[in-house]
């Protein structure tokens, strides 16, 4: 087990190298560069070719591709993530300012969707064919089908503008508010994001639970005379949980990039807007950093999923 984890983590290193190169290459293949984006069109008309070239030179954009990549990589290995080409702020500072907000939002949404998804999925399965089951199915379909921004706007209109219950957007009124004072800001974006995630888990949990309920071992357990609740929750759910946990596990990468639309709608100062902007501006250091974290999270999630499935299902051995 420990061996497995160590080996997996070591295997991350070459993978990260290859993937970081591919992301770098991707940015390089886009037309234009950061300077084209940074200079406003009216300023461009007054600037000479030499001036532009000087700017490129000062940002290091004139070096060949490989040289720039190796320079970037060397910086990262020394803990220097570079500066944002747009604002000149160190990338590390930007990440430190924006990442917590996004994680706060996505973690809440993930926890919410996992708990309610499993809960409603199991209820749906136990009451299969009932009105409740059908209602949950319809709500689930709506959750999948409705665009997040639309639901977000509807909620803002209803709860913030008409009912005046929650703030319209933002993350906090001032820096010195504690978590509970900031909670009202979190509720709406987290629930809207969570709602669309819930239905997936719900449908999955329902299917998995129904599958497990039809298994022979359920009949064995029933023949033992144990009560229905124990039968369903222990024997049924326990075996049904593995695929659901895998689904949730593979959603972990969402922690970083999964809330772009919601962050935009609710003016949430997370990483989503930052990422979109920096890609448009070909702000290589920042794009690289966010991309790097996303990729890392995907790889780590798959290790976590492996470990959790092995813990849940005795038939799976890590080796």
């Amino acid at each position: 087990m420990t061996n497995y984890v160590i080996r997996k983590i070591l295997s991350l290193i070459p993978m990260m190298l290859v993937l970081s190169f591919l992301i770098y290459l991707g940015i390089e293949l886009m037309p234009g560069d950061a300077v084209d984006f940074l200079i406003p069109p009216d300023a461009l008309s007054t600037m000479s070719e030499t001036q532009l070239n000087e700017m490129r030179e000062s940002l290091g954009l004139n070096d060949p591709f490989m040289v720039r990549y190796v320079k970037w990589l060397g910086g990262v290995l020394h803990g220097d993530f570079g500066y944002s080409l747009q604002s000149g702020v160190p990338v590390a500072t930007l990440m430190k300012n924006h990442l917590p907000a996004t994680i706060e939002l996505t973690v809440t949404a993930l926890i919410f969707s996992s708990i309610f998804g499993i809960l409603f999925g199991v209820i749906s399965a136990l009451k299969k064919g009932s009105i409740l089951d059908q209602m949950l199915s319809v709500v689930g379909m709506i959750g999948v089908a409705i665009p997040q921004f639309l639901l977000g706007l509807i909620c803002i209109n209803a709860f913030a503008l008409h009912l005046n219950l929650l703030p319209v957007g933002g993350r906090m009124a001032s820096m010195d508010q504690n978590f509970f004072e900031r909670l009202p800001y979190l509720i709406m974006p987290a629930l809207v994001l969570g709602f669309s995630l819930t239905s997936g888990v719900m449908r999955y949990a329902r299917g998995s639970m129904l599958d497990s309920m039809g298994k022979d071992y359920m009949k064995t357990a029933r023949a033992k005379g144990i009560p229905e609740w124990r039968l369903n929750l222990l024997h049924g759910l326990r075996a049904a949980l593995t695929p659901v946990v895998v689904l949730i596990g593979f959603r972990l990468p969402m922690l970083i990039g999964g809330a772009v639309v919601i962050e935009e709608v609710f003016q949430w100062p997370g990483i989503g807007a930052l990422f979109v902007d920096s890609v448009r501006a070909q702000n290589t250091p920042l794009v690289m950093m966010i991309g790097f974290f996303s990729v890392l999270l995907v790889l780590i999630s798959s290790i976590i999923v492996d470990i959790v499935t092995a813990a849940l299902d005795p038939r799976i051995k890590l080796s």
Partner: protein
Amino acid sequence: MERNQDVVVKVEDLHVNFYNNDRCNKVLRGVSFELKKGKIMCIVGESGCGKSVTANSIMGLLPDLSRIEKGSITFHYQGEDIRIDRLKRKGKEMRKLRGEGMAMIFQDPMTALNPVFTVGYQINEALLYHNGASSRKDATKKSIQLLKEMGIPLPKQRVKEYPHQFSGGMSQRAMIAMAMSCRPKVLIADEPTTALDVTIQAQIFELMLDLKETNDTAILLITHDMGVVAELADDVAVMYMGNIVESGDARAVLTRPSHPYTKALLDSIPVLGRGREQKLEPIKGSTPDPYNRPAGCQFAPRCAYATPECETGMPPESMVEEGHMCRCFHHLRKKEGEAND
């Protein structure tokens, strides 16, 4: 009430219907038999004839969309006569009986155990739920003892293992250990060896014979293997399309079959040693659609002796000899003929 002391379960005129899509399948159409203490009763018949439904009715494990329409199942337990057909299937009384008074083992032991719990945990569960053990520790001790009794080597280690680490035969032994954990009066085995290979089959049956001897358990064995019947059964019931067409002492039924279906079944089995020239007589046709049953005797359309009388209704039970019953018009006619001679 007058009752034979040895009878543990008495099934009388049991009718069970299954419902689906507005259609109704009359699965059991009047089944009567008795399970006796320390005896093995075999039910044989083709797939879909109602063998398993009979077993599940006794255990209260019928599917949700089914109903006992008529008849009774009486379980003699702890000095009382309990009417199982009147108990709520998932109710407390029925749950107490299941596992404690009667237990069941199934066809495929590899899927009958929950893969995510250890074998020991699953046996403990039965013990703890029926006050067979005072604590988890005590239960584990008893589970180890049970596994040992069932002939599982290294029970102390095996009890901690998961079902996927058990072979098919081992799993079935573990299932039997679980079933026998509370020393039930009745053990129902629904084709317990169909999924196992022949040598393991023999071992499992030996184990069951052993249990019958030592615990005085009444065993209801569902099978379609006539060889098993000849070997193990004290009594046998032959079922066809929801009826017991012939029943009685196993030796009597097998050596002097009276119902054309029983005869046909026995004629269709190859006998080892008779060589490849032996002639097997298959039963003509196939079982009728359960939703579109023949009006009279269910076997009439496939029966070589069928007469117009056979289409008038299900023949009544008639005695072939002491303790040997048969439901057949042909047999009745033959008997009358003999009486007139």
